[in-house]
Each structure stands twice: as C-alpha cells, then as structure tokens.
C-alpha cells in the first residue's frame, strides 16, 4: 500500500488537525495525544467537510438527569448536522455501524504518512 507523506509530525500539535489533499482526496490528519489518525474529510451523512468540525468531547452515557462529560479531544463533530465521530476509528457515537472513512497513518523519521490504496 503506498504511503503518502503529508506533513512533519511537529506541524500538527497535539489536539489539532490539518486537512491535506492526497490523490484528489481531502483528508484530515489528527494528533490525539501524540498519536496520528486520518479521516476522509467527508461526512458519511450528507458529504459535509467533516474535518472542518470541532475536535470535542461529549456527554458519556449516563443515568437519567446525570451528566458526565468526557472523551475530550477524542471526537470530531460535523460542522453541519452535529454528528459526533471517534477520531481514532471513524465510528459515529450514536451508532458504530455508521462510519467516517479512516486511513492508516504511520510516522517515519518524523514524517506523517497516510496509507491510501
């Protein structure tokens, strides 16, 4: 599988993302706690630019009228309809069968590469 190097690791500070073009695909590359992840910049719902959405946390499943906030920095919320996705896997929070396309990322000699087949 071809690796496309898109940035130096240092160019994507922790808790942020960049959007790059790889072979005509718009892809968001995220640094979550020092690990890198890549998502297609297209929401599976209506094609919105998902990776322009905020990196966020959310309320965790809880008892009625209990609020427990967590997963800070692990999720991205679509800038259109607000669907929340796990950056690590692309899985939607409301139903893990709904997925944003994700790509394997590897870092070689400080360079961030995305594997796009």
């Amino acid at each position: 599988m071809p690796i496309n190097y898109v940035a130096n690791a240092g160019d994507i500070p922790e808790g942020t993302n960049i959007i790059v073009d790889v072979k005509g695909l718009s892809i968001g590359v995220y640094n979550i706690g020092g690990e890198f992840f890549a998502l297609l910049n297209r929401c599976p719902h209506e094609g919105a630019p998902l990776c322009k959405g905020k990196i966020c946390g959310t309320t965790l499943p809880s008892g009625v009228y209990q609020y427990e906030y967590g997963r800070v920095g692990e999720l991205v919320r679509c800038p259109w309809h607000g669907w929340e996705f796990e950056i690590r896997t692309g899985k939607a929070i409301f139903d893990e069968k709904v997925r944003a396309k994700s790509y394997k990322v590897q870092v070689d000699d400080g360079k961030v590469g995305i594997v796009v087949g």
Partner: protein
Amino acid sequence: MLNSGRMVIDVDVHNSLRSARDLLPYLSEPWRSRVASSGTGLPSTGYFNPHGVLREDCKPPSGGPAASDPDFLAEDLLKPYNIEYAILNGDLMGVSTMHDPDHGAAIASAYNDYMANVWLSKNDAFRATILVSSHDPLLAAREIERMADHPRMVGVIMGSAHRGLLGQRQFHPIYEAAARHELPVAIHPGTEGSGGAYPPTASGYPTRYLEWHTDLSQSYMAHLVSLVCEGVFERFPKLKFVMLEGGIAWLPHLMWRLDKNYKGLRSTVPWLKRMPSEYIRDHCLFSTQPIEEPDDPKQLLAIFDMIDAENILMFSSDYPHRDNDSPLEILRWLKPEAKQKIFYDNAKKLYKL
C-alpha cells in the same frame, strides 16, 4: 467537482445582516436610535442548539456572520450546487412575535429596503421574499403593497409563530394583498415560543432544543388545518401558501384525518366546496429540508406517493444553518421526472422565475 449538471432552485436561503446596523439607513426615528443602541430587539425562544445554529465551515472571508456577504454566498452555495435561483428569506421572521407591532413593522420595512438595495441588485440569481409582521395584519398588508412591484420580490415571508392560527380572519388582509399581487405567502419555523407567541407545543414548553426542534411540525399542522377550515382558499382562490422547513411526513395523517372529520362535520364549514385535502393539494407547497430520513428510503418514497410530492414539494437547502441539506445528497432515489419537478420546475412555476 460537486456540480452534477442539474440546475436547482433553492427556495430557502438565510441571508444575514452583518449586524443590526445594516438596517439603520432604512429606519426612521424612533426606531433608528433604538436599533443603533440595542439591536433589532427580536425576542429569543430560549431554546439553544448547543453547537450553534450556523454552519462553522461557511464564514465569509470578508468577516461577518455566515451568509452576510452576497458575493461569498454566490461563491459558496450557488456555484458549486448549480443553483440558478435562490429565494432569500433572511432570518428576521421573529418580527411577528415582538410585543410592539409598530416596532416589528418598522424592522420588517427596513429589512425589505435593505434587501432591495444591498442584495437583489448584486446577483441575477437572487430573489427575495417580503418580510412582514403578522402582529398588525393591516400594516403587513400595507408593506406587501409597498414592496410588491419590485421585480425580484417574489413572495411574502413570515415566521410560523403568531398570536393565532393563521387561517383566522384577522390575518386575511395579508392574504388579500398577497393574492392580489399573486405573491405566495410562506411561513418558516424557528420563532415558536418566542416573545408574544404561544408555547411551542400545544402541551407546553419542552425542556430542550432537541424536543423543541422536533415538535415544530405541530405548529405547521395547526396552521394548515386552520387555513383550510377558515376558508382562506375559497376566499382567496389565487393564494398559494408555502410551508417551509416544517416537514412532510405528517401530511398523510393530517389529510386523512381532516377529510374523515369533514364528512360528518361539513355543516360547520359550509363554505368548503371540496374535500379539505384537495385545498391542500391545490394551494399549498412544502419544502424538503430537513428531509425526513427513515432507515429504509422506500418508506419515504411511499409517503411521497401518498402526498403526490412531485407536485407539491420544492427543494430547499436552508443554507447556512447547520441542519442544511445538499441537493447532491438527498432524494437520490427519486425518478428523474420527479427530481426535475422538486428541484426546479415547481419553484420556477410558483415564483414565476
């Protein structure tokens, strides 16, 4: 490339002021000083989308809120989606729920002049609707009269929250003026529960935005039954009524229930000459966004058949609101003829574009 080649007419676009100060040149005193010091004064519903109402990805590079720059709106919405005409409805429909009818009417008039001067001359694709406040229907009718001859003002816009059900006689001057100028009257949700409006549901105030937004269709159902039963379409046979953003999946239920009730209770509305649902089919149009999304699209197709959607439905994006729909993504399963009508022909005919 987003462009699919199909030309689209978008019947619900929410242009925005850069700030309330944009209205100042078109306001006379005492309203000018008031708006200069404290804004439009539009009441809030108290229901907040925690993520905000505006899309985060379409802020104009020139600054200002989303959809406040006519050139960027053309670049960001019209061009990529092949939108030939956009009906600009603004976002000041709350004028109808303000407590002071003169204040609401003044804001509406200033907005209409602002649209004529700032937006409508900017782009041949732009068409606008005349904003009125229903609080004083006579003032509303006068405003329609004042703006109706503008060649790019193609309809009338109001919120869907009012001090009464829209079929009732106090609102008829609005319909008389609109029908005389052959301008469709549209309503748009979002002000339910604000200012002098009734609670946003018939059973009170829901707790959160999620519920409020889901319940908005209730307001549409009540207005639609009222419009038919009060004989609005008998009295104003040329009137067309557009129900924007209120949903459509509830229509079969409403038409069946109303027709069934009418059979035994027609003596209470002797002015109706046809089955109630026929007035809806002949006089009312609906917009797509936010399109209902059952897990199985065939279920929505069945509803489309029940309501003859291809003849009463028009595409709307709702740009730049978060819950907007893309014309390239929704209703892909429609047959080409139905698609052509819903995404283009129905709006072209209604607004005489």
